[in-house]
């Protein structure tokens, strides 16, 4: 039975119009190809959906990183194969439920999102009442079994709220995971969001997030990916009202034959909006990375300030990085900047460390950690230590290889 046959049965049995429509949309769109600009460089030819069944099985026990994160949580939300399985702790003003999938026009052209809408068990919806202020983070521990799974998340932050949300994704080998997330940040709210992905290295991770930022709201989003064979992470922000601010940091570390594929779109639709994007990653072994980022500024979005930076560290002669920043500006009264770089570790800095008695391998590890330092430092305090040590462990493996 093909994957599509399985999908048709699931959707037929569910008898929900949005799912039926989504599957029809998926079939009409078909899987994307690399001739589509947003999929350029992606190893889509290696993707054979028919090798996957829909994921099923019980949730595994928590990884040490997930445990480290959850001990610091005000609220722990556990999700397995896209299904809400547990909410632990209490955070006043925050409620969690799983609701049926609804049709969402914003993802109409994205085949993988449509597939997710058709096959996900539902949307994990986290609602934050207006005026909610949390010191400790809300942690979403998401796990997946072997096979295809489609975790959908909707985070709705009410006005004048302030909180941190940390998502952690891990799972079994042989996973094909398509997370689709929407973050709605209402007026004068402040959301710090961290997403940490560590799937086994044979996995496919095709993630998409869209943030909608209202007047004077602020989203600081950090995306860190160490896992999956193909890690795709598209993170978009719509700045729809004046004064909205978006900071996005994406971090990756490639080893073996991994592919890290980051796409971003900062869409400025209102005056006095700002976005700062910093994408930094290191590729070792035969791994490669792709960064294509678009800053789009609508006519009338005066006094917009938009910046994007992408730096790539090449740790082996066989590693490769593509960096393609793009601007699409339809307003004159704006400040816009982009920068990108691709290169190896600084040879003289490395020698300097070695000449202080630091063995080469340790010197390289320290330098890569240093290169990624500002990415970790920007995470919420309560979780940066956990992520930093996970990253250090991973780095030792990469440099030792």
């Amino acid at each position, binding site marked *: 039975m093909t994957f599509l046959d399985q999908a048709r049965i699931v959707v037929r049995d569910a008898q929900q119009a949005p799912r039926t429509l989504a599957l029809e949309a998926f079939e009409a769109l078909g899987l994307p190809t690399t001739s589509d600009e947003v999929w350029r460089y992606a190893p889509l030819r290696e993707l054979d959906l028919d090798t996957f069944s829909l994921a099923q099985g019980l949730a595994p026990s928590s990884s040490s990183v997930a445990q480290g994160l959850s001990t610091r949580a005000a609220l722990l939300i556990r999700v397995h194969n896209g299904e809400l399985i547990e909410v632990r702790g209490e955070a006043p003003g925050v409620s969690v439920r799983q609701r049926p999938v609804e049709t969402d026009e914003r993802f109409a052209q994205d085949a993988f999102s449509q597939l997710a809408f058709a096959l996900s068990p539902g949307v994990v919806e986290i609602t934050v009442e207006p005026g909610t202020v949390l010191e400790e983070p809300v942690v979403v521990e998401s796990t997946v079994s072997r096979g295809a799974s489609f975790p959908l998340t909707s985070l709705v932050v009410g006005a004048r709220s302030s909180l941190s949300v940390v998502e952690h994704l891990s799972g079994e080998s042989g996973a094909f995971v398509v997370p689709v997330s929407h973050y709605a940040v209402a007026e004068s709210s402040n959301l710090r969001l961290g997403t940490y992905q560590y799937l086994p290295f044979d996995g496919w991770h095709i993630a998409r997030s869209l943030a909608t930022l209202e007047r004077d709201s602020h989203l600081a989003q950090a995306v860190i990916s160490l896992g999956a064979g193909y890690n795709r992470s598209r993170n978009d922000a719509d700045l729809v009202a004046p004064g909205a601010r978006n900071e996005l940091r994406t971090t990756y570390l490639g080893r073996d034959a991994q592919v890290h594929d980051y796409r971003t779109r900062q869409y400025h639709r209102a005056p006095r909006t700002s976005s700062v994007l910093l994408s930094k990653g290191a590729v070792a072994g035969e791994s490669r990375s792709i960064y294509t980022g678009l800053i789009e500024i609508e006519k009338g979005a005066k006094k917009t300030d938009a910046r994007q930076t992408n730096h790539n560290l090449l740790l082996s002669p066989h590693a490769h990085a593509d960096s393609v920043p793009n601007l699409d500006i339809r307003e004159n009264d704006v400040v816009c900047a982009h920068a990108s770089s691709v290169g190896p570790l600084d040879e003289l800095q490395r020698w*300097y460390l070695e000449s*202080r*008695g630091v063995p*080469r391998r340790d010197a390289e590890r*320290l330098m890569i*950690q240093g290169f990624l330092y*500002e990415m970790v430092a920007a995470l919420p305090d309560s979780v940066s230590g956990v992520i930093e040590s996970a990253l250090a462990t991973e780095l030792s493996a990469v440099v030792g290889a």
Partner: protein
Amino acid sequence: MSHFVIDELRVEVAGKEVLRGLSLEMSSGEVHVIMGPNGSGKSTLAHALAGHPGYRVTGGRATIDGVDLLTLAPAERVSAGLFLALQHPLDVPGVRLVDALAAAGELGEVRERMSEEAARVGLRDELLDRFMNVDLSGGERKRAEMVQFGVLRPRFAILDEIDSGLDVDALGAVARRLAQATAEWSCGVLAITHFRRLLQEMTPDVIHVVSSGRVVASGGPELAEKLEAEGYEPFSALES
């Protein structure tokens, strides 16, 4: 008692031979000074001995107690007892000095020892937890090199024009620390300079004059006075 022997060392920089058979010998606890005009090869000697990637050794040997430094990786040369303090210590953004020294080997309570050393050379303690040399003044950088020196306790230290660009206070602090080290663990000090200022702070045992990539004269402190009076011109004539 340790011995540091440089024997007929030849080094190329960008395809050009800069050291042309340089030799000198020194022992534990001694202070040797290398003087010479710009371009004579003083800094090349320091960088080549520390394994700088821009310098290619084409001949000769350099040993500490018989161990050939030139076949070792830079960090192994440190284990063998060599330390280089640089004229221009490099910025290493993202790497804290304390983490670098912690990775430099089994050095015990590194952070505490760094604090002690920092106090001895008048370096603000908080700088030890900052990224290496980033935003540090010239004087702070040299003092930070002395902290590394004090923690690593090398058998022989090469100081590459560590006195240049230093104010009198910093120069005094550096020189006092070096002088103490010669007593504390019989550290041998090889100071490269073209100023006499350092010599007023430390008493050298031997002065070597380098010209065109070779040692052309060696002698006691009186040699520095001769240089002061007559310049390098008479020594250039000694080249063969």
